[in-house]
């Protein structure tokens, strides 16, 4: 029996606490900032600190400096000269944003477009998600793949495709005129309509997927119980399906709304010169006007606008994670 002993004699002491499972010991070492565990944590943390969080500090800093014709095109925030630290905070960029109606209306228009696009995406996406969730097993996977597939091909090219469809001598006008429905082509390109089409089209999968994930979990016996108790199919939908799918609606809406607010490519390609979305304004400040401080101030203002929906999304996802 003594021969059956495992390697117990030559136990290396260094192995203590190196195991993630031996949490208290590992935790003690990590608290001291030692050990491989702390190193493993440090790799992604440091990377994201440097390349994600600190950049925002830099943006905030530059939003407070003055534009200049220089390389880089802004004045330093502080100067160290003759033993005196001179700090010049320039809130002018923010005052400028507040005073010029361009920015104010761009923010308003971004929120309006994002809001209505979300609504349209919900109206189109809900029946699709419902159809997929209720489809038989094999069919369901195929439909789901069909929703995801466009997402894997180039976003830029899919937006570009709409130009060919919507423009004055494009597919739609061509078709409508050839069947004699209209005599004059309808102007659709470079309008807000085209921007709506582009945003709804691009972000539709973001609406469908969380809705599907929610609807597929819906217990079908609930629907049977409702109809057994005398509810018609529309009443069943309003009183059972819809209330139960609210978390999915909520998550999907935020996933469409948040990126839509900051969208640049779609208004740039499909919108007209008077489609003012904030992402496009930031881009123009930066690339056309080379006004880095104002572009930074626009970015910071945009962050403040998005903080609330982002926090709502985070909360929605956490509570969803808690359920499953």
């Amino acid at each position, binding site marked *: 029996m003594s021969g059956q002993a495992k390697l117990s004699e030559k136990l290396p002491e260094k192995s203590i606490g*190196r195991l*993630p499972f031996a*949490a208290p010991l590992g935790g003690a070492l990590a608290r001291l900032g030692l050990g491989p*565990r702390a190193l*493993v*944590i440090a790799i*992604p*943390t440091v*990377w*994201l*600190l*440097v*390349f*994600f*969080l*600190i*950049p*925002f500090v830099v*943006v905030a800093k*530059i939003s407070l400096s003055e534009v200049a014709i220089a390389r*880089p095109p802004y004045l330093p925030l502080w100067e160290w000269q003759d033993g005196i630290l001179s700090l010049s905070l320039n809130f002018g960029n923010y005052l400028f944003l507040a005073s010029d109606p361009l920015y104010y209306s761009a923010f308003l228009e971004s929120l309006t477009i994002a809001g209505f696009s979300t609504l349209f995406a919900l109206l*189109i996406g809900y*029946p*699709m998600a419902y159809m997929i969730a*209720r489809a038989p097993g094999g069919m369901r996977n195929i*439909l789901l*793949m*069909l929703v995801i597939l*466009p997402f*894997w*091909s*180039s976003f*830029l*090219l899919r937006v*570009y495709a709409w*130009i*060919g469809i919507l423009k004055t*001598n*494009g597919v739609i006008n*061509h078709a409508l005129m050839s069947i004699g429905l209209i005599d004059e082509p309808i102007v659709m390109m470079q309008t807000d309509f085209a921007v709506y089409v582009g945003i709804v*089209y691009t972000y*539709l999968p973001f609406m469908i997927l969380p809705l599907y994930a929610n609807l597929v979990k819906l217990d079908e016996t609930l629907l049977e119980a409702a*109809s057994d108790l005398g509810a018609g*199919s529309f009443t069943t939908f309003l009183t059972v399906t819809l209330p139960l799918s609210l978390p999915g609606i909520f998550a999907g809406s935020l996933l469409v709304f*948040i*990126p839509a607010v*900051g*969208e*640049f*490519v779609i208004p*740039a*390609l499909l919108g007209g010169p008077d489609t003012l979305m904030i*992402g496009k304004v*930031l881009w123009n400040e*930066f*690339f056309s006007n080379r006004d880095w401080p104002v572009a930074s101030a626009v970015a910071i203002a*945009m*962050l403040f606008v998005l903080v609330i929906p*982002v926090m709502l*999304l985070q909360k929605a996802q956490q509570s969803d994670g808690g359920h499953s």
Partner: protein
Amino acid sequence: MKKRSLFIIIAGILGFIFLYAPIVSLVIFSFNESKLVTVWGGFSTKWYGELLQDPQILGAAWISLKIAFVSATLAIVIGTIAAFVLVRFKRFRTRTLLSGMITAPLVMPEVITGLSLLLLFVAMQGLIGWPAGRGMTTIIISHATFGAAYAAVVIQSRLVDMDLSIEESAADLGAKPVRVFFDITLPVIAPALVSGWLLAFTLSLDDLVIASFVSGPGSSTLPMVIFSKVRLGVTPEINALATIIILIVSVGVIAAALSMQKGKNNNVS
């Protein structure tokens, strides 16, 4: 019941038509003889020929592929470690910070991410002299950062589903933590690593906004070239390019789905 089903099916089918109409029109008009994209002038593959002789597009495509390959690989390393740390290490001081930073890039508007990264690179160059100018390196770093966020989400959900006792039993059989990770954890989450990598790769290939901010002279990516071309109008050459991309993606996705299906069947029998 039947009535609503019919309504749902019709609405669903219309939805799928909406999703696929632009893609189908791209493919059809890529074979159009006429330069007037929407007027059918007969079948032709001449735009493909022109595309393959366009040095600007080919050069940009090569740059984009290189950037996507390196940044996706970097993203999967960072994303895997972040996901592992968040799922397996229950308590540590920087937990909230890390989980916030790994999810925030998913919802951050690209214009903000792009601007902030550019300003960082400029400031870093001023302070420590690195990175010297903008180019492929800065694009790779930027793409790796948001790619890591997407990869981490995919890997995290796989790790959460994984039976913890599998790792425990390897430790119990005498494997040290690093061995457990490489022998057990990595092979079990391998499918998530592959899809995470593909996701990061695709996102990098597709990104226009961030790359526009952080690129430098001589490092124009494919989306940047496409964007500058299509701003001037519809060109059949781009239709041909789009068709090629769609073909590659479809074949890839279908092959992946089939191989997963086959893997499942093998396991069952």
